[in-house]
């Protein structure tokens, strides 16, 4: 296609994308062939503590990452409808719905995930995962470990800290029992360090978007996020993000932006709309707007401050409890404002995502707080991350136009 040869577009393409795709393909292949290598498979929630799994040589598989793939390949509606035929309400999280129906149907872009030997559910992101993993534990009839991270409305109490710490010990015992072998604590320490290093690198990659023009956009971040979710704790993730960081720095030096003509900088809130990322990125780019940062991809490095890389297991309890979705709305608003300042954003785009209640309820208050404290215009897009039936293109198209008008006017007014 002529499009591929456009030198302007070629220049803007992130070279690491290819590598990332190769790594992920290999990762899923390996997971699907785990039965050959006698490796155990654990399904784990996206905010879950993966490091002990890596240390125990267990292959972690992420139904939510799979959900994102289902959404991006536009297979969400079909799978969601299948779940509804099984009796699951269409109001439930579409990651959960598509995963639940995918298991018996072996559907989706990779013919279903490899069967788990165990399920690891950490409820630091939502209560949905608890119910979802109960469903899968019944379906696959495998042991389920729940890491219960008490919600931090205004504080992380002493008793909560103790409770989570105890569970981290139980978690290790659980893994040792399922694998019938002891945890190698030296290896665990190494994995902990690698995890922290990868998270730092990921943060550094995201930080490059502070430059004008931003070398990557939130849409790029959505894509490059996969490794920090699935493979943190491995050398591979560290190597990859080092390369990606180098590429971003080079782009900054060369003045290459994520979009051709960056005039406006926006912040994205909530999960991506997986089946429309391309449409949305083009839509914003056409208005010379770059989504320079987002609250979603930064969630995988937001709790770094609580983690001690030399004492990973000990500090993990706090790190995993105090992540973005497990804190009160006022604290979330504070973090949004910090990001607005840090990335010099001119506006806020919020995806009101009917799938994700803990992420979406409270957005209206965050929007108000941001308006009061920074006077920033914001846009609320009503949609769903995977289920296209809840996306109205014409309506969203008009709303983005109107919003960009406000952003432009406000800037010319200053």
């Amino acid at each position, binding site marked *: 296609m002529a499009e591929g040869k456009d030198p302007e577009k070629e220049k803007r393409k992130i070279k690491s994308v290819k590598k990332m795709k190769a790594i992920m393909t290999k990762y899923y292949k390996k997971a699907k062939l785990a039965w050959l290598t006698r490796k155990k498979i654990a399904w784990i929630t996206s905010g879950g503590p993966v490091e002990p799994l890596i240390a125990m040589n267990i292959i972690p598989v992420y139904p939510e990452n799979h959900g994102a793939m289902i959404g991006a390949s536009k297979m969400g509606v079909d799978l969601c409808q299948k779940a509804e035929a099984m009796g699951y309400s269409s109001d439930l999280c579409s990651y959960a719905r598509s995963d639940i129906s995918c298991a018996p149907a072996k559907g989706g872009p990779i013919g279903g995930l490899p069967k788990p030997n165990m399920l690891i559910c950490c409820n630091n992101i939502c209560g949905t995962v608890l119910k979802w993993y109960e469903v899968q534990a019944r379906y696959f009839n495998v042991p389920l470990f729940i890491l219960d991270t008490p*919600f931090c409305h205004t504080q992380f109490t002493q008793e909560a800290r103790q409770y989570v710490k105890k569970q981290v010990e139980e978690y290790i015992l659980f893994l040792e029992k399922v694998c019938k072998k002891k945890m190698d604590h030296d290896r665990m320490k190494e994995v902990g360090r690698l995890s922290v290093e990868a998270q730092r690198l990921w943060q550094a990659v995201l930080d490059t978007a502070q430059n004008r023009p931003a070398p990557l956009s939130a849409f790029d971040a959505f894509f490059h996020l996969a490794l920090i979710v699935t493979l943190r704790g491995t050398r591979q993730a560290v190597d990859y993000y080092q390369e990606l960081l180098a590429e971003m720095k080079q782009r900054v030096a060369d003045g290459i932006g994520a979009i051709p003509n960056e005039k406006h900088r926006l912040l994205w809130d909530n999960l991506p709309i997986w089946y429309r990322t391309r449409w949305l990125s083009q839509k914003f780019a056409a208005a010379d707007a770059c989504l320079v940062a987002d609250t979603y991809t930064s969630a995988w490095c937001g709790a770094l401050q609580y983690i001690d890389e030399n004492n990973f297991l000990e500090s993990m309890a706090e790190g995993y409890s105090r992540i973005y979705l497990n804190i009160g709305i006022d604290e979330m608003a504070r973090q949004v404002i910090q990001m607005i300042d840090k990335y010099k954003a001119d506006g806020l785009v919020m995806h009101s995502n009917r799938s994700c209640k803990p992420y979406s309820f409270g957005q209206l208050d965050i929007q108000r707080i941001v308006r009061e404290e920074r006077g920033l215009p914001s846009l609320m897009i009503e949609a769903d991350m995977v289920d296209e039936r809840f996306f109205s293109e014409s309506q969203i198209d008009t709303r983005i136009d109107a919003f960009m008008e406000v952003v432009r006017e406000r800037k010319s007014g200053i």
Partner: protein
Amino acid sequence: MKQMKELAGITGNPIAYARRLQETSGKKIIGYMCSYAPEEIIHAAGAHPLRLFGSGRNILLADSHLQSYCCSLVRGVLEDALAGNLNYLTGMIFPHTCDTVQRLSDIWRLNVPEGFHLDIVLPVKLDTADACQYLIDVLHRFRDDLGKALQTKISDDDLRKSITLYNNIRNNLQKVYELRKSNPDLLSGRDVYALVKAAMIMDRESYLTILQAVVGEMQKATGTADNKKNRRKRLILSGGICSQPDIYSLVEDVGAHIAGDDLCTGSRYFAGQISVNGDPITAIAERYVKRVVCPAKHMGNRSRAENLLHLVKDCHADGVIFMLLKFCDPHAFDYPYLKKALDKEGLPCLLLEVEDQPQAQEQMKTRIEAFLETLKTL
């Protein structure tokens, strides 16, 4: 029964009742909206626990805080609070349950000016020793926090007195359900609904007096059972809260009755007893751990189905009606597996998805009629 008229008035407008109670008795009213609220501790502090339901008015103010895909219970309660209808509350407490209530707590804290605000961040799993210890720790913290907020000290003796009162209420409500099992005509379904609901609204001492009188009259009336009527189909109502009390009469009108329930505004509210020996906080925690679990909490992977089947057997029920609030995730996730468990036993069920607003009554009636038709052919 003459008591029922009074109760119907109170449960029809709990907000007005509690306001009057506050004005006449000077009692401090503490709001809550979940059956994991430790009422005994509130009562021991000399305050009055009031369960909130949302008065079903049009949603205007809550719309600026909660999107349309939020359950009507939470939207309704927030609407009442923002409209100032709950401004007599001395405080509001939020036991941690579902994602929606979790965020309601934040929104409340930031937007409702009146009263103090306390979170009770309960564990989500209840089936490990560490979780139980954490639950006890959390309840201890709540006791301290509440004491501070109300400027009082809650002694163990106060707690034991409250536990005894609540045990008494629970015991008598269990009797009501027990008596109705063999003779449903002793009290209409609608009256049972009002009786349980009033337990979460009324001054608990006055309530107990009424409840005991009701039980007494029911006991006197047993034996006058009309056996023909008792061959009516028996149903179980399962879900979170019952926001459509009309369902009881609808079911009775088509010649069946609700013989038992699995509702958090029904039997889950009064199941179990609390020991009066030992540390009262530990005893309160023990009841929560032993009680039938709510779907927002984890107690193994199959306990709810086991409970439901047990209940069906115990009540000799012919079928189950699931009454689920639209947008309620925990219950919606459990429905398919509960249905499957019933299917396996050859037990039919009907799913009614409702919103907390005057429902299209006719439609509900038609569906219940159709369901009963299929039951009769079985």
